[in-house]
């Protein structure tokens, strides 16, 4: 088997896994602590990408663009929480789903109104737009490795935040018993707002990191958010550890399935059958995986304790 291709696909799979983790961890935190289903999480991913594209265009530097887009996305997250989401915590999941579906329409149309229907290209700085050579014959794009590095750093930071800080303690306490920590004097509304903004930043970061590869486009978050849902369902809703494990599994299986499933099928069926069935099966692979896991563990791989 071609090792360079295999290594490249591994890197692509890990990079998809990292993006999915950034989206899924925010979704999972917001659901875990506020019991809130946010379909519009993908819109924050899109907003992050567009902010980054615009600021990169103004300043000429992708790094400054990304650094400034983070607080800008946080502000959008805060506004959404204060104007709409806050009114929904007491409602049932059906209302969450519908109202955030409305938010998606608002976000997509507003983005189109401001930036136009065409996507925005985000140029990479020259030092990131290179390739590194490993073991003298495997050539990999630097930027994808950088995405994985940033994502792992964020995952470590998130783990430190949740398990070692006072804020993290409150987040965990809120996830296991919302009313109790309110009764103990923690300002639960402020906590909710902060967690929502944190989720927005994580989603926005994923969007701005993918923008140089795919470009920022209207509705870019609507496809990947479903996969992020699959991730948190597999990982166990409310669990960051589960989100990480499931994101990596889904990222790798999806990427590997698309590149190697037809070769695998050719081992036991005719070439023609393999070539027609492999694309369909590989597109459905992660959903089949989800169904298989749920059939045995309806709560996901790592269900959070205490509920």
């Amino acid at each position, binding site marked *: 088997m071609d090792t360079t291709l295999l290594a490249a696909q591994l890197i692509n799979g890990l990079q998809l896994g990292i993006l999915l983790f950034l989206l899924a961890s925010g979704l999972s935190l917001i*659901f875990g602590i506020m019991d809130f*289903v946010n379909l519009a999480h993908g819109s924050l991913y899109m907003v992050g990408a567009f902010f980054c594209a615009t600021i990169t265009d103004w300043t000429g530097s992708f790094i400054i663009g990304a650094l400034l887009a983070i607080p800008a996305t946080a502000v959008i997250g805060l506004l959404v929480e204060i104007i709409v989401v806050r009114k929904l915590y007491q409602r049932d999941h059906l209302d969450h789903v519908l109202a955030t579906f409305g938010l*998606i329409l608002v976000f997509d149309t507003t983005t189109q109104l401001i930036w136009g229907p065409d996507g925005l290209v985000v140029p990479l700085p020259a030092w990131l737009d290179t390739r590194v050579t490993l073991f003298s014959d495997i050539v990999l794009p630097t930027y994808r490795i950088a995405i994985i590095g940033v994502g792992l750093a964020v995952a470590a930071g998130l783990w430190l935040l949740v398990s070692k800080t006072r804020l993290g303690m409150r987040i965990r306490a809120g996830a296991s018993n919302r009313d109790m920590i309110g009764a103990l004097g923690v300002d639960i509304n402020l906590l909710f707002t902060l967690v929502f903004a944190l989720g927005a930043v994580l989603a926005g970061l994923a969007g701005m990191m993918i923008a140089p590869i795919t470009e920022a486009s209207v509705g870019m978050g609507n496809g990947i958010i479903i996969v992020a849902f699959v991730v948190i*369902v597999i990982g166990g809703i409310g669990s960051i550890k589960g989100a990480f494990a499931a994101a990596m599994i889904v990222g790798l299986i999806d990427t590997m399935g698309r590149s190697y499933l037809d070769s695998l099928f050719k081992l036991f069926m005719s070439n023609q059958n393999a070539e027609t069935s492999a694309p*369909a099966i*590989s597109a459905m692979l992660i959903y089949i995986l989800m169904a298989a896991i*749920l059939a045995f563990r309806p709560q996901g791989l790592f269900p959070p304790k205490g509920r």
Partner: protein
Amino acid sequence: MLNISSWNLRSWVNMIVLVLLALVPVLVSWSGNEFYLDIATRLVILAMAAVTLNLILGYGGMISFGHAGFLGIGAYAVGIPVYHEIYDGFLHFPIAIIGSATFALITGMICLRTKGVHFIMITMAFSQMVFYGFVSIEDYGGDDGLVIEARSEFGGLFDMENNTTLYYFCFICLLATIYIVRRVVNSRFGMVIQGAKGNERRLQSLGFNTYRYQLACYVLAGAICGFAGALLGNFTSFISPEMMDWSRSGELIFMVVLGGTATLFGPLLGTTAFLLLEEYLPHVIDLVYKGGGVYWQLYFGIILILVVLYMKGGINGFLSRREGSK
């Protein structure tokens, strides 16, 4: 029901909508504008899908975010045979019903093991699975969709190629669906379904296997929605995976909630309001602010959020409150 003196505002509105729908072809032949028949046919078919969604979502409390998947399966049950030059409607419609019922049975068995948010996300994921499945089957058009060059044939019984005939066929199917849902909801079976929405554990302790009841309800709703999908395939003459995208499922939920969940005619009112908004909102916005009509979805999204936040019970709930305040 037929004692007119006891009718309230809700019954009057429901009856007026039904009578208007029954008269659409007549009104269209007067005005000579075929376009309205198109809207009305789409309305009737989507209302049928919304009525079945209401059975599981409104009465059963199973928030399915993948209902458009059944519409798509039904539509492809017409599209694929026609592609192979099989035009027999007595084959298309059973395929649509059996296909979507089988899909509902298999996915329902897995989805119903979970509750709440898991259920929402898993139903959504399964319909996306069908979406991506059809996107990658290139024999049947893949992403680009499939043109259905002829409508189903019913061996000379009636001619679906005639738009008015097709409309009345859809309309009768809608009435039949509403009747079936009414019978189901008021039966012992329906009582168990509604009871399980309120307090599942209590019903289980009474000895009901709620899982089986819910699964049967889910399969029934899926099967009828697949039938509606076959009608949609006949009507649109062009189908693509896009029609089962998750945003289509979201629109179906909006139709149900807009009209009023767990009410018999709510989904019909909701679908009517939805399609009228979709059709006329751009024109209204253009009147107020020239060139703004292109961005009607912005206002549509805001209306959706406002309905969720401030219009509990949808149109039906609104009409009942008007009645109560008199």
